[in-house]
């Protein structure tokens, strides 16, 4: 950790300034060409959908680029924050379940939540007993026993209430509020979880953050998948309302184009804010902490506070991006959140595009998403060709071909991560480190 990272050599190409950013122009020109080709071959409705999804992923990627690129914190649990945002968007936007609110169940659920708060308060109070002279060991034992008993009581009440909800009214339904409110709350929820994780891990080695985020993502997914009373679990919720007119009202292409304009405006706002933050003293301080923690601390910067800030900030963006993505898909399916699609794809976007460079991240997001979407049919075609050869030569007959072909993409994503780390560790559009002589 102490050796200066050779990833960012001091003699980077930033000292020679071109009048025109040729590299960026060429790359974005190529990207535009690729997108136009997709438009020409796959039709405008399909391609617009692809662009909307790519723009949602761009929000996720911007979230990761500030964590990994600006501050060097790696988050391996993007999927969890996406799922949390998606849940919030769903919960706020779907219609109210009148059967639930007409029954006595909301009251009982409220009592359980109240009991939860009371138990937490009691345990917290007991854990402070040492202030009034109770021996520490006794306090610890008391707190653990009280916590255990209280937890068991509350959880058994909760089980009975949620069981009744599932059997009587299926699930608690939504709030019937505008979608954008759900998006904002989704960001806040993700930020809250990010605060909790960051509070525990950010003072420690960076590896621990990876493990913890990986774990919390699986826990969030398990919770959403198994809480049938809250999310209908594997039964999924659809359709989800859009903030713009539905395809049913104005046709697929117009509706998707309107949605695209919403996401583009969001990206523009986020991009502008990030750009300002990056070039502000705050951004310099974050980079100073990333590049040399010891000297930043010596300059009186509060390392853990700043790290916490940026981690929460990135998680908020991930929550918002996940909410927008889920609303667009029109389906809330907790099992549809996969580490591959929602964590590692975003990782590839960021490290390929250029960590720490917002423009590069946007470029990476769109490019990787287009490749990802197109690689499905391509993988199938390649697989069919291989199997045709295989059965011709060796009489090889594998089953469930399609799912296996899709697994081949996992391999390619992994290989891509390793190749980029090896041969282009700073991405296609590297971060420009300003030097002031």
């Amino acid at each position, binding site marked *: 950790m102490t050796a200066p990272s050779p990833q960012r050599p001091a003699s980077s190409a930033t000292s020679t300034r071109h009048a025109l950013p040729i590299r960026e122009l060429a790359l974005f020109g190529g990207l535009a060409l690729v997108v136009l080709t997709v438009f020409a071959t796959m039709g405008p409705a399909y391609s617009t959908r692809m662009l909307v999804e790519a723009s949602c992923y761009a929000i996720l990627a911007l979230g990761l680029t500030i964590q990994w690129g600006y501050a060097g914190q790696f988050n391996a649990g993007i999927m969890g924050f996406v799922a949390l945002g998606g849940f919030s968007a769903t919960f706020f936007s779907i219609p109210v379940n009148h059967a639930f609110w007409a029954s006595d169940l909301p009251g009982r659920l409220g009592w359980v939540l109240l009991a939860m708060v009371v138990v937490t308060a009691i345990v917290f109070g007991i854990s402070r007993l040492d202030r009034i002279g109770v021996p520490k060991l006794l306090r610890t034992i008391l707190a653990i026993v009280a916590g255990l008993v209280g937890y068991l009581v509350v959880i058994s009440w909760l089980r009975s209430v949620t069981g009744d909800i599932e059997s009587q009214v299926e699930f608690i339904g939504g709030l019937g509020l505008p979608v954008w409110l759900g998006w904002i709350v989704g960001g806040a929820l993700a930020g809250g979880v990010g605060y909790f994780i960051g509070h525990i891990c950010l003072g*420690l080695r960076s590896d621990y953050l990876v*493990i913890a985020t990986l774990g919390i993502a699986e*826990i969030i997914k398990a919770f959403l998948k*198994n809480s049938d009373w809250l999310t209908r679990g594997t039964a999924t919720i659809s359709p989800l309302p859009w903030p713009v007119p539905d395809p049913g009202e104005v046709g697929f292409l117009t509706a998707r184009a309107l949605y695209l304009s919403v996401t583009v405006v969001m990206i523009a706002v986020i991009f502008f804010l990030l750009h300002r933050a990056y070039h502000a003293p705050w951004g310099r301080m974050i980079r100073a902490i990333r590049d040399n923690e010891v000297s930043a601390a010596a300059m009186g910067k509060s390392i853990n506070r700043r790290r916490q800030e940026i981690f929460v900030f990135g998680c908020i963006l991930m929550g918002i991006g996940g909410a927008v993505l889920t609303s667009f898909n029109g389906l809330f399916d907790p099992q549809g959140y996969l580490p591959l699609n929602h964590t590692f794809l975003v990782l590839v976007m960021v490290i390929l595009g250029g960590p720490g460079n917002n423009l590069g991240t946007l470029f990476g997001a769109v490019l990787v998403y287009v490749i990802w979407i197109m690689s499905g049919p391509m993988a199938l075609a390649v697989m069919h060709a291989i199997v045709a050869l295989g059965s011709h030569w060796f009489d090889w007959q594998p*089953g469930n071909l399609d799912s*296996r072909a899709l697994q081949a993409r996992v391999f390619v994503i*992994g*290989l891509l991560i*390793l190749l980029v*780390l090896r041969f282009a560790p700073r991405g296609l559009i590297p971060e420009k480190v300003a030097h002031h002589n």
Partner: protein
Amino acid sequence: MNELIYFFNYVVVAGSVTGCIYAIGAVGVTLIYSILRFAHFAHADMMTLGTLAVLLLTLAFPHAGDPLGLPTAIVMLPVAMAFTSLVAVGIDRAFYQPLRSHGVKPIVMVIASLGVTLMLQGLIRLFAGTGSQNLYVDARKEIFRIDVPGVTRPIILTEPQVILFVITIVAVVGLHLFLTRARLGKAMRAMSDNPDLARASGINTRLIITLTWVIAGSLATIAGTLLSLDVAFKPDLSFFLLLPIFAAAIVGGVGHPYGAIAGGFLVGFAETLAVFNWSVLLRPLRDSLPTWLELPSNLALVGTEYKIVVPFFILVAVLIWRPTGIFKGKVI
């Protein structure tokens, strides 16, 4: 007494089984950590890869174990261990070695290991599909019932569980002897203590790194195969195994092989105790309890579907109160 036997079967045996597997996995993680200084996230997939090798060999020679009276999978284990070690060394040479020689930060190595995870996952599912398969091809698990005098319920042990305990003990004792007695083992410990000093005193660090991968690959194969023998081969377990294994390694103190073993058992027993339904044990007391205290039928701390929460909370608790682990790991 019946309740105690039930407790023994469902907590002591099940907890030891899980504990053994986590312990062997965590030892591998912690060894890689102490030599190469990064958290190797591809370890769970190396376990799956080793198991896949065992499965393929078992499918190819389903009756190889019959003369020895052992399951074929156990007979094939050494071959699969050699294969997985070879793959592990190959991965190191192809992907980690170049990054290491560039002197990247440890977190970049972690990301590289995530890339390796994905590659292995893709390959494994390409060849094995995603469904679960039984490692007992053309054979049946033997079940031993031990009757305890005076009790109707017997103690139940299965053949793979017995094999698991034996192999774990052999592996742990073997590793201990290797690390304390063998020349290479001592060199390995020296390198984990201080790589520069080890190199300066003439230890071949390249050889030590290769050896680390061989040991890690072999241990991963053992852990994966024993897990699959006990339940079934599931190609998509990896992220669910990673968290308990890393929790075990961190609880025991990172870079501390004996701590990893203790941590593995701690996490394994904690998981088992948390999903155990305690009301079964309290059932004999039910008649003597006051009427106002009615016991709910389900007193498990967490449902089986939330099992993964347990290692996570152990991890969080350790990171908050004792980030160095129980046995004081080297580095944080």
